[in-house]
């Protein structure tokens, strides 16, 4: 589903060029769930932004469901995102002036689906917020907002879902709920999931874990050893 070949990212700073991502190559299979872990500033969000086509690679090639992201312009990437990608963010990124239901409908409307409202209502029920459809984001709790964001991510049934610290802003109870919901919907729709997190427990729920450190990527769990625990991952890293 995702194929990367020697992708790297370099940015210009006042002190010259800075390579924030060393050349990386890895693949993600369809339906697989992959966690990218690492300390703040290690480059994991940069990697996510490249994989999702939100940013351009400096070198290398990325294929998303066979389409060469690296050679596309912003418009083509936007279209591809609209067709195949869903997103969940740490800060929820809901449009404040739209209601919960309208936020959920947004990707469907952008994609030009006629039954956006119906789909939105359906999925809103699924995330347990059927009664809060007319509420604005600032009238919802953090957990509720993230559930709306999850619903929004799944409304177009994307092939790939990118999640950036989906539980980073939530308390333990809400984190659990959101995690559960995320993996449940992921399984139901057979979506490929790539998530960036600090949280070892969340990471451990993914089939694979990739570790970012100073712009370099190391595979913690192989494609075969899915479901490895966080402890395993740390041990492997230590060895």
């Amino acid at each position, binding site marked *: 589903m995702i194929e990367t070949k020697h992708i790297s990212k370099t940015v210009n700073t006042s002190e010259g060029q800075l390579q924030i991502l060393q050349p990386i190559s890895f693949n993600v299979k369809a339906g697989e769930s992959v966690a990218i872990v690492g300390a703040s500033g290690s480059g994991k*969000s940069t990697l*996510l*932004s490249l994989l*999702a086509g*939100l*940013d351009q690679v400096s070198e290398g090639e990325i294929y998303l469901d066979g389409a060469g992201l690296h050679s596309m312009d*912003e*418009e083509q990437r*936007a*279209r*591809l*995102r*609209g*067709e195949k*990608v869903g*997103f969940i*963010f740490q*800060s929820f*990124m*809901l*449009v*404040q*002036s*739209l*209601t919960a239901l*309208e936020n959920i409908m*947004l*990707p469907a*409307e*952008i*994609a*030009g689906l006629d039954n956006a409202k119906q789909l939105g209502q359906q999925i809103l029920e699924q995330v347990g917020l059927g009664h809060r459809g007319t509420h*604005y*984001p*600032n009238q919802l709790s953090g957990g509720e907002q993230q559930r709306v964001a999850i619903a*929004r991510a799944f409304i177009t049934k994307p092939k790939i879902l990118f999640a*950036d610290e989906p539980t980073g802003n939530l308390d333990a109870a809400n984190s659990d709920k959101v995690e559960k919901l995320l993996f449940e919907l992921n399984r139901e729709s057979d979506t490929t999931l790539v998530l960036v997190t600090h949280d070892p427990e969340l990471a451990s729920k993914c089939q694979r874990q990739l570790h970012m450190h100073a712009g370099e990527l190391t595979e913690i769990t192989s494609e075969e050893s899915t479901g490895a625990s966080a402890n395993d991952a740390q041990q492997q890293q230590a060895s």
Partner: protein
Amino acid sequence: MNNAFNLAWRLFKHEAKRGELTIILFAIVLSVASVLSLSLFSERLQSALTDQTAEFIAADRLLDADKPVDPQWISKATEMGLNTTKQVYARSMAFGNQQMTLTNLRAADQGYPLKGELKTSLQPFGLGQVTEELPAAGEAWAESRLFQALGVKLGDSIEVGDSEFTLTRVLTEVPDSGFSVFGGNPKVLIGYGDLEATNITGPGSRVSYTYFFTGESSVLDDYYAWLEPQLDRELHFWMSVEDDDSPIGRSVGRAEQYFLLASLLAIVLAAVSIAVAAQRYSQRHYDPVAIMKTLGASKSMVQRVYLYQISFITLLGIVLGAIAGLIIQQIVVSAIADKVAVSLDVWHWRPLFIAVFTGVICAVLFSLYPLLKLFSVPPLRVLRRDLGAGMSSRIVQFGATGSAILLLMWAYSQNIKISLILFVSGIVLVCALLAITYGLIALGRKLGQGKMGAWQLAWARIKRRAMGNSVQLISFSVTIMLLLVVLVMRNDMVSQWRDQLPQGTPNYFLSNITESQRPGLQDHFAQNGVETDVFYPVVRARFVAINDEKIRTEVTKEDDDKPSQGRNGLGREANLTWSNTLQNGNRIVAGKWFDGSTTKEPFGVSVEERIADRLNIKLDDILTFNIGSEVINVKVTSLREVNWQTMQPNFFFVLQPEVMGSFLPTYITSFNLPSDQKAKISTLMRPYASITLFDVDARINQLRAIVDQVSLAVEFILILVLVAGSLVLIAQVQASMDERQQELAILRTLGAKGSLIRASVVYEFVIIGVVAGAMAALANELTLYLLQTQIFQMEGSLHYAYWIIAPVVGALVVGILGAAGCWRLLTLNTSQLLRKMV
């Protein structure tokens, strides 16, 4: 397409409901309302004033001719629905009581005057009553001076040409009698039907024909368009109120310029507020745009969504603004109804068109750059919140908004000069402010050091938001500057008008006072409690040559009482006076005033600038005058600018006293007699039958009434602009307060005391207010100087007081508004604040 529309509509609906569009909507409403009310009001006021001014030419338009015009021209005017009448002017001798005097004879046709009123009385120098009639056949009405000159009374007969007329009334006021202090020869009014029998209109006589027209201004314009190709520039002279060069015409003209200026400033104010609001609007939508792009929206879809949204906002703003504008002007009109009768019956489309046009242009052009910025927000912002718009160019921003403002002003005023003056001052102000902003940042680094108190917080904020603050500073400064311009301009203009006619302005003039009569007259008047003014010596002369070259042009207007002085009716006779001191209201523009250095012939003469220009008289030219049988030659030593708007005797030629030593002069003087003491005149004048009395009291009262009305109108316009400006300031503070929300929330969360936060915000606004006020005072001087000297034909002046007032008021107003805005935020608790931030 449909999706973008739906989404835009949904966003618009929710944002409007949640009050998120208030600021930008308010800016558009304000711009449309202020432009509409101002231009609607000034248009109506102008037509009311023009209507009143029209009384001074007794019609809306005049056609002057040496000979009767083609009757078809008049029938065409009637056909087009215009009212017309005519009057014949002739200079003719009148005989009566075995005396004779030169008169200005007027033969008026039915309908005269089309505008204004004729007033008559039943005794010379009596108080006039309005009359709707004209002299009947065989009757004549004459001015008091004729009765004085001929020693006749009502009921007596006078002969004019071959006809005899019975004097049935004293003519006290004729609307179109001009503003010359010395109205020339006494006027005699007869019916048009009696003219032919007098036989004074034959070849060689000095006769002119004036045709009067009134009607809808557009019809008058159409008529002139039809007539113009048939007119002969040499023979015909078309005149409208606007061409009126009298003090009234000029006062109204200046007031119109002021209204135009005020409306232009309202447009700029509106533009500033929309620019500020649009920037804020754009910034607020960075996140939604990044989200939409992330979710797959194409650039064109995002563009459509926001263009639709801006259209909805503009449309709503225009509708609300138009309603508000109508209400405002209705209130203003009824507030001044008892002072100036402004008709609400006539609906003027132009102001509505201008207001809508302004709203659309402002909304489109000023939101263009913020929108372009908005469209360039990268989707990556969803992950990296620090990312702003992809494009940023102050040059594009200032260039686009600047040229839009200039274009708007030009389109509206059709006057590139006034537009450029305002624009250039604006540019200077903006450049100076940018320099100041950077200076402040540097200064702030030093001043803001030390323990973190309110003062340090204020400086830190100013420093951190340097660019944002510079925009805010510019908008505050421009607003304050514009308010200063309208305020100071109004003060200068109104005080100048009042100065023209201070209390005690002479309303009677005396001429033909002999040397021997002078002391006695002074005493006699003093005994009756009336002060006489300066006695000017006058010798009647004939102007014959310039550098020995005979002149054919008729020179002076002193003998003429017709308003159309422009082309004909000038006499070659001139009143010469002499003096060693320059008269009040006179200014030397070339050469030198007599300094006693010329001790032998030719002695010097000072010539009025405009007549010099017309007759091509230069410094050092030799002018020749005939006085009786004597010939005198004088050399032009200076050219003078004369303020003809002062009600005092003014002279084209002032000679060096030495040259006139041998001539016996008569004197001119003036005095003030309150209207209610008019009856005293006969007592005052009884011993001096040979002295000519000119009564300009009615004229002065008319002039004063108009000046008062115009001043009042200007005052209301000022208030309107002040209100609009204050609202803009409030909107600006409100907009910038939102930007401070986040910081306030953080400070609150960290446990900062309300008093610390409040004080820091107030300090910040006070600093901005002081700088904005000071810069506004600076730019105000530049703008005013250019406006006064280039547009209003006034003396440029400096206004030092405002150098202090502006920064203080700026600090106070901006500080108070800032504090008020801050108070509102601080009444929310921290969690509400944090929630608002999300």
